[in-house]
């Protein structure tokens, strides 16, 4: 509960950035609709999938930058001088990275049908985006403990994409989810992929988050002295 309250403050503090990102799908839809531009269905699907990958960037760069921003601004002092554990604080960062994605996904889910995006593309792409972001948010928070925001974001994006490099026999559900996000929906075993993707995403996210907590507990805060 405390984590959610802190996350709400973090989101409010960065509300203009989130607002721009969350309004972006509506802006794109408006341009296409008002401009009377009628892209081909496959172009619509491509635009939609491209917008979905921006969601990954949103989570990676937000998650990677939050800790550094809060330390630079010293607002972290306001929170961690109270009965808030470092685990709760990292959970707040995780939520602040992940929650805007829910809004973004909702935006995409509302705007894509207006443009005529196919239903299977819509559901599978957004599902894959959400499940991959579980792991990505944890990776970004972990990377932000040691790296500046942008580099932490890039590194976490690289890490979450690593399953694409796994040889065929070693591919995990995350690999399939990445393929869905980048190449389009699958027709076989979709339920199995998403079910195992959810379990795998939760497990990976929890393990990475736990690692981040253990590291954060053993670290000094980096506070600029006045």
């Amino acid at each position, binding site marked *: 509960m*405390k984590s959610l*309250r*802190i996350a709400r*403050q973090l989101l*409010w*503090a960065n509300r203009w950035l989130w607002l721009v990102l969350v309004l972006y799908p509506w802006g794109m839809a408006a341009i296409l609709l008002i401009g009377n531009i009628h892209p081909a269905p496959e172009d619509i699907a491509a635009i939609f999938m491209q917008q979905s990958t921006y969601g990954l960037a949103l989570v990676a760069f937000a998650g990677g930058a939050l800790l550094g921003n809060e330390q630079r*601004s*010293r*607002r972290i*002092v*306001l*929170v*961690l*001088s*109270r*009965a*808030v*554990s470092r685990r*709760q604080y990292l959970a707040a960062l995780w939520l602040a990275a992940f929650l805007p994605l829910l809004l973004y996904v909702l935006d995409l889910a509302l705007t894509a049908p207006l443009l005529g995006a196919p239903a299977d593309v819509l559901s599978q792409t957004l599902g894959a985006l959400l499940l991959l972001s579980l792991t990505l948010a944890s990776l970004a928070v972990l990377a932000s403990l040691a790296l500046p925001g942008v580099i932490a974001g890039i590194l976490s994006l690289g890490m979450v994409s690593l399953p694409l490099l796994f040889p065929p026999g070693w591919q995990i559900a995350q690999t399939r989810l990445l393929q869905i996000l980048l190449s389009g929906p699958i027709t076989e075993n979709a339920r199995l992929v998403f079910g195992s993707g959810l379990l795998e995403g939760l497990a990976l996210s929890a393990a990475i988050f736990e690692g981040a907590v253990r590291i954060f*507990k*053993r*670290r*000094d*805060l980096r*506070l600029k*002295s*006045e």
Partner: protein
Amino acid sequence: MPSALVFDHISKHFGSARALEDVSFSLEPGEILGLVGPNGAGKTTAMQIATGFLLPGSGTGTLMGHSFGQASARRYLGFVPDAPVFFGGNAFDALRFAAQLSDVTPTREAMEGLLRRVGLLEWKRDVRRFSRGMQQRLALALALIHGPKMLILDEPASALDPQGVLDVRNLLKELRSEGAAILLSSHQLGEVAVVSDRIAFLHEGRLMRYGRLEELLKSTGEMTIALRNFMPDAEFRAQWGEAIAPGTWKTPASDVRRFLETAWTRGAELVSVTPMHGDLSSLFLEWTSSEATTR
């Protein structure tokens, strides 16, 4: 009842730079400890270790019986940083958020009472638009919202006007009488001297002096000696220096006997020998310069 704050042989280094070296002291409930020292002495590091922002390199410490760094320890802690920052919203929003993080739910009346107690009467504006003095008052209110038993205050009155400084002084005395333990760091040494029961003097990461203020003031180690019917000759002046006032000399306590023998052989009559009483500011300068010369 456990000590409110215990530093037990705590050291902290940043790379090769020493921030704290084997620092030990304690603070009891109902007591104010003034933490003084020149810039870079380690005061902020000590406070940041107590609040759990920094981890001690070696040694241990407790806050109300809980190890530093535990969230449970900070349940009893109110902290005012040297430069308070806020998330935004009005004073009530800031208080409500702080209270939620400390597991309390104060009423609107309680919050208003607290804001009045710290002298903050502007409640509706965004707190980030407050003047620095108002922000310090609000930071004090945030620190007190959950009725902490231990307060760590880093320059709590540095941006306040004289009335504000007086208000803070009275507030600290009230809190002490209510049983709160207070660790106070400030460069306003007059204020530290007025409110503190004990003083800890840090210099280059080491705790150089620690004790009750009156004892430290006595321990300047110098005496003033007043004489009459005495005109010092050149040899006497060369040995003991010039008088600090007509008929009055200052000398280290260990030299008093030799001084008096020298004066008596020249026919002087003794009026008084009294320990020198400085104030905290002059002690601070003396300690700082003496530590610099003995390095």
